[in-house]
């Protein structure tokens, strides 16, 4: 890295080198049995330069291409955007729990055993179903150095386990997907199997629902459908381009006051946790929405510079992509209502768990229109069966504004920590 720094500094006034080395192992089960064992050993270097005040970037995977890397980054800088920032120097970097050394020593055989346990539990209840499962462990070493004197590297581990259970019957396909991931090794076989089994049980009966407007409960697994629009809305880059619907709403109410949301890269062992962001800025906890009021957008150095504000330590990147603002762990503050209480409260309504067609509507505006892959009908305070062949349509901001209750039991769905949330209305057509 120091050699690249030296080469690039001959022509550039600012240099940043970002290096990643990773090793991962995946065991995959298909049709109820172990089918493949996969590993990868990867590495790469991203080089960002500031030359004559303008930014250039290039990346490479192999040491033999370092000359090309430096030449390409410098050439790109002659066309690049004017830099509205300086690379950060040394500063106090917090200790963030994102590495569990025990993951290093987990054997393939142990991972296989965990997968087999979950599948066995599910097949015991539902022998006709087919299970697919995937367990993955990844260790990444990230290093960043820059011409302002920053030298930092950290290790991160990740362990994940997903199960997909599927039954194809003419006119009645049913697939249930459940997953967990963390920087820490945990044994999730029982937990995942139980979640799959419970949902298959609820889906055994079919229920009908008429076209109309109903109260709706989004399970944690369904919440990313709503939060992906919000993530775009708070993204500093979209604010800077004036295409975020929230661009003029700082300090204003954008959701019900029951909703508070943080972005927090320091959350212990969460999948998007790290001590620094992609530009070496120390990680922190940022309040995004406080009791319904929009508190902050998220920025990297360049976007913050353009907007004449400070970075929020939200530069996301890999070695082969230049930094860009993105959320880390998005945390929705849990409320005080249980899922059971929400169901009891519903005269006639729905639970949304899995959808098809997310991310295809006008997401900037918060619109969504999805087919209910896995949804349940509630009648007189009880879950009465699965509803299917229907479309659920709405607007994320309208929904968040109509929140009736925020659930008590939150969980991580990838890097989003969320409880179930109960909203006043969603449009259903069928």
């Amino acid at each position: 890295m120091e050699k690249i720094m030296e080469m690039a500094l001959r022509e550039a006034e600012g240099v940043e080198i970002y290096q990643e080395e990773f090793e991962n192992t995946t065991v995959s089960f298909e049709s109820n049995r172990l089918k493949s064992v996969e590993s990868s050993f990867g590495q790469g270097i991203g080089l960002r330069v500031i030359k004559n005040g303008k930014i250039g970037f290039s990346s490479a995977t192999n040491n033999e291409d370092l000359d090309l890397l430096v030449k390409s980054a410098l050439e790109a800088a002659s066309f690049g955007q004017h830099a509205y920032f300086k690379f950060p120097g040394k500063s106090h970097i917090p200790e963030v729990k994102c590495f569990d050394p025990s993951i290093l020593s987990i054997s393939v055989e142990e991972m296989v055993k965990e997968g087999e346990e979950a599948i066995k539990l599910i097949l015991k209840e539902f022998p006709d179903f087919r299970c697919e499962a995937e367990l993955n462990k990844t260790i990444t070493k990230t290093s960043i150095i820059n011409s302002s004197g920053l030298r930092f590297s950290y290790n991160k581990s990740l362990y994940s386990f997903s199960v997909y259970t599927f039954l194809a019957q003419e006119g009645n396909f049913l697939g249930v997907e459940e997953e967990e991931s963390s920087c820490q090794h945990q044994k999730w076989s029982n937990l995942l199997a139980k979640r799959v089994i419970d949902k298959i049980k609820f889906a055994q009966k079919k229920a009908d629902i008429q076209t109309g407007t109903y109260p709706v409960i989004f399970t944690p697994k369904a919440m990313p459908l709503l939060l992906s629009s919000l993530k775009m809305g708070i993204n500093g880059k979209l604010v800077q381009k004036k295409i975020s619907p929230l661009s003029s709403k700082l300090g204003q109410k954008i959701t019900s006051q029951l909703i508070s949301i943080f972005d927090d890269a320091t959350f212990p062992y969460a999948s998007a946790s790290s001590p620094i962001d992609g530009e070496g800025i120390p990680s922190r906890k940022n309040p995004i929405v406080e009791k319904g009021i929009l508190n902050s957008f998220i920025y990297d150095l360049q976007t913050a510079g353009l907007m004449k504000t400070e970075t929020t330590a939200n530069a996301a990147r890999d070695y082969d992509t230049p930094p860009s603002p993105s959320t880390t762990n998005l945390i929705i503050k849990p409320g005080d209502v249980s899922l059971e209480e929400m169901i009891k409260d519903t005269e006639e309504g729905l639970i949304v768990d899995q959808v098809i067609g997310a991310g295809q509507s006008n997401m900037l505006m918060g619109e969504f229109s999805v087919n209910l892959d896995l949804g349940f009908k509630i009648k007189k305070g009880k879950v009465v069966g699965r509803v299917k062949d229907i479309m659920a349509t709405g607007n994320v901001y309208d929904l968040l504004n109509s929140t009736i209750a925020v659930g008590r039991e939150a969980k991580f769905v990838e890097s989003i920590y969320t409880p179930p949330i109960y909203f006043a209305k969603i449009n259903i057509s069928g």
Partner: protein
Amino acid sequence: MRSYFLSVLEKIHAEYAEIRYEEVIFTHLHFVGKELESIETSVEKGGNVRVKGKAGWSFISFNKIDNLSSYLTEAIKKASLPRGDPVKLAPVLPQVKTVAATFKKDPRKITLEEKYYLCSRYNRILLSAPEIQTSDLKYTDSHIMKYFANSEGAYIQQERFHIALGMTSVARRGDNIQSAHEGVGGVGGYELVENQEEKAERAAKRASELLDAEPLTGGKYTVVIDPKLSGVFAHEAFGHLSEADFVYENEKLLEIMRIGRRFGSEILNIIDDPTIPGEGGSYLYDDEGVPSRKTYLIREGKLAGRLHSRETAAKMGENPTGNARAISYEYPPIVRMSNTYIAPGEKSKEEIISEVKDGIYACGFRGGQTNLEMFTFAPEEGYKIKNGKLTTKIRDFNLTGNIFTILSKIDAVGNDLILFTGPGGCGKNGQSPLPVSTGGPHIRIKNLLVGGK
């Protein structure tokens, strides 16, 4: 490369082993609004070994090729872990082939400056219509060298250029934000992205006009879809279900997906064809070294075939089709589509629309998804059809259907087949985006569920 790979493969003892290696140099430009967000030329090199054991696979990907022998030894060890039904491969004649890139203009000989000026010219057009707030233009050209060798003696070296240009205009009026997209590209040279001013103009004009479109009330409609959307329809509504890895070990699904089952009327033909030159999903050999070929998925309304890897073909006793593809050296090949389309029929677009009393004309696409039973596909815009005429412009609606019943609701197939590709592509099992083309003529579907306000 050949002698090195073969010498390594000679020394090992495995039922089946293969080595893939790739060298990719790409140039990428990204404009957002008036600003050039990023511009880069980068190089990526890496490979993998894949070994078949008695009942499963192991796979190791890497960047450092010097350790090839030790990766192979490790992979052979891991391949013995899976137990159960044996995994077999359909026989394929081992090919020894060198395939050169086909192109008119070598993108490597075009200077970065020239690419910059071409993209900024298109970008200015994207920003030129009334009320346009911003644009998003992505250009990528890649030079790809792919090497493949297996323990059966195959060695295939394929060179190609892949180029893609995606152009989006975003219009805004208060809280109303609308976008329109055009994409071009495929396997070929710089010529594929030249002279696209008209497409940029179209994206800008459409985004601007969408501000005046009305949201649609959800419900069931007769829907005419344009070639862009009928391509997504072919891909989502049927293509994925034709991928044999979904059915080959699932007897229940196989009963439902038996060859010869009628899905639609005789006017309907759906085809996957990687041999069409210059499209997004065009190739001569797949990532298992199997020659590519045209496959009828639906012929005259009946299930006629499916897409295979060597493993799924062996298991089902069908012929391999050359559809095992990986998005890069970091992934094993899995069964994928290539260029998937609905074959043209007899009717003109005008006839198809004029026969509709009350319905919708849906155009362009934002994406699609399936769970093998239901699927969704999202148009960019549309019009209401009243008494055979296009009337009010509509926006923000999504189409959905059941794969097993939808094809029988198609009652007209147009004569105007067009194939589309661009940046992005298809996603499956974490491998995304895989370059594909999709296309079709105008088609008409009765009684389709539409999600709207």
